[in-house]
C-alpha cells in the first residue's frame, strides 16, 4: 500500500515536528524558545535554512527552466508531486491557488513551482492542463527520473517511490511538504500537508517581507 493513501498518516507526520517542539518543555523559557524558533509562522521553521539549489528542468512549453535564475528575488513555493495524485497534491495546490487569488500583490511576487515525481505519466501537456485547474501562473517542471532524483536530493526531500510503471494505474509515494524559498534565496519554512488556507494567508505576506534577522 503506497504511503500516500491515507491523509491522516500524512497529517500525523505533519504535526510531528510541532508536537516535538511542544514536548520540549512547558516552562516559560521553553515556550519562549519555541516561539522564537517558530517566529510566529504557521509553517515549520527549519533549524538550518536550505539554500536554493541550482538545477534546470523542462517546463510545460518544452523550454529549459533554470530554477535559481528564474526565481531569483521571488518568494518561491516548490512542491514535488504528480498529477494522478488523488489527495495531497490537489489539496495543497488548490489551497495555495485559492489564497493567492485573494492576495494579488502577494501573488505577483510569488512563484509556485510544481515538479512532477512521475515523469512517465506526466507529460508537459498533462501537467499544464492539471495546473491550469488551479492557477495558470503555476509553473510545471518535468525531468528524467535521474534528474528528478537529483532535484529531490538537492531539496533534501526523500526519494519518491514510483512502482512498476508497466502496470498502468499506480500511486507515487512522495514528500508532501511545500518548500518556501524566501526572496533571500533560502528556505526557512516548510509547509507539510495539513497547512490550511488561513495558514498560507498569514504566512505568505510575512515570508515576502521577513529579512530573517542576522542573515
Amino acid at each position: 500500500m503506497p504511503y500516500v493513501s491515507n491523509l491522516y498518516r500524512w497529517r500525523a507526520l505533519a504535526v510531528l515536528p510541532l508536537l516535538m517542539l511542544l514536548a520540549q518543555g512547558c516552562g516559560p523559557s521553553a515556550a519562549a524558545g519555541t516561539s522564537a524558533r517558530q517566529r510566529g509562522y504557521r509553517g515549520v521553521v527549519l533549524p538550518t535554512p536550505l539554500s536554493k539549489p541550482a538545477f534546470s528542468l523542462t517546463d510545460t512549453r518544452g523550454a529549459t527552466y533554470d530554477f535559481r535564475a528564474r526565481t531569483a528575488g521571488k518568494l518561491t513555493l516548490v512542491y514535488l508531486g504528480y498529477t494522478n495524485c488523488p489527495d495531497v497534491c490537489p489539496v495543497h495546490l488548490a489551497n495555495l491557488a485559492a489564497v493567492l487569488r485573494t492576495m494579488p500583490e502577494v501573488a505577483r511576487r510569488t512563484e509556485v513551482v510544481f515538479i512532477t515525481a512521475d515523469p512517465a505519466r506526466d507529460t508537459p501537456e498533462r501537467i499544464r492542463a492539471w495546473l491550469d485547474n488551479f492557477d495558470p501562473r503555476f509553473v510545471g517542471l518535468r525531468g528524467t527520473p535521474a534528474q528528478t532524483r537529483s532535484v529531490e536530493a538537492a531539496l533534501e526531500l526523500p526519494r519518491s517511490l514510483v512502482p512498476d510503471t508497466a502496470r498502468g494505474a499506480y500511486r507515487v509515494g512522495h514528500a508532501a511538504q511545500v518548500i518556501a524559498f524566501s526572496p533571500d534565496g533560502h528556505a526557512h519554512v516548510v509547509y507539510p500537508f495539513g497547512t490550511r488556507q488561513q495558514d498560507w494567508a498569514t504566512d505568505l505576506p510575512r515570508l515576502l517581507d521577513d529579512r530573517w534577522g542576522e542573515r
Partner: protein
Amino acid sequence: MNVQWWCSALGVPWTWTWRPYLGVWIFVALLASAYARAWRRADAEEDRTQRTGRIAAAAAGILLLWIALDWPVGTLGAGYLASVHMVQYILTSLAAPPLLLAGLPRAAYRRLAERPRALGVTRALTHPVAALIAFDLVTVLTHIPTVVDALMRSQLGTFSFDMAWLATGLMLWWPVFAPVPERPRFLPPLRAIYLFLATVVHMGIAYYLILSRFPVYGIYELAPPTGWISPLRDQQVAGGLMLVVGALVVWTGIAVVMFRWMSAEAAERTDAPPARPLPAPHH
C-alpha cells in the same frame, strides 16, 4: 469489503463504491421495530381516522434518518463536503424529529404517563425553555470548527453528533408536535415564537459560514477533493442550506401549528351550541 459501525472521515479519495454501516442499520432497524411494536399494541385503542397519517409520518421520519446516516450522505457528510454535513444536520435535527413525534401512537404517550418518573424526566427535558437552550447549545457546539475537526475523524465522534442532533431535535419539537396536550398554556402563537427563536442561532452560524474568507473546517478543506466544488464554495453552500432550507423546515412547522390552531378555532365555533334566546322582557 470494509464494514464500519458508523460513518467517519476516512481520508481516502471519494468513490461511488457502496459502503455498509452496520451500526446505522441496527439503529434504523431498532427504531422501525419499536414503532411497529408501538403501533401493534396501540391498534385497538387508536383513532382510526388518524392512523394512516401517523404511520406515514413515522415511516417518513425513519426514512429521512436512514438517508441522513447511511451511505452516501453519511459518508460524504462525515469526511468530504460541509454542505452534505449540513444536509445531515437538517434531516436529523429538524426534519425527522417532528415526523417521528407525530408518528407515535397516542397510546405510547399514555403509557409514558403511567410511569411517573419517566414522565417527570420527559417533562423536564421537553420544557420549552430547556429544549430551546439544549437545541441551540448543541447546534452551536456541533458547528464549532475545532469540535467538528476533532470528532468527525472517529466513528464515535460522528455517532455523538448524530445522536445529539436527534435527541435535541426531538426535545425541540416535542412541545410543538407531541400529540398530547401536556402544556395547555403553551398556546400556538407561543409555539410559533418558540420555533422562530430556534432559527436565530441558525442565522449566526449560516452567516459565519457564508462570510468567512477561508474554509473554517479543516476536515473538509483538507479532504481528498471530490472535484465537484471548492472547499470555500462548499462551505458557503452549507451556510445557505442552513439559512434557507433550515428556515423552510422550521417555518413549515410554524405554518402547521398556525393552521391547526385556526382549524381548531373554526371547529370550536361550529360546534358551539346556538346562543339561547334572551328571555322575554318581564312586564
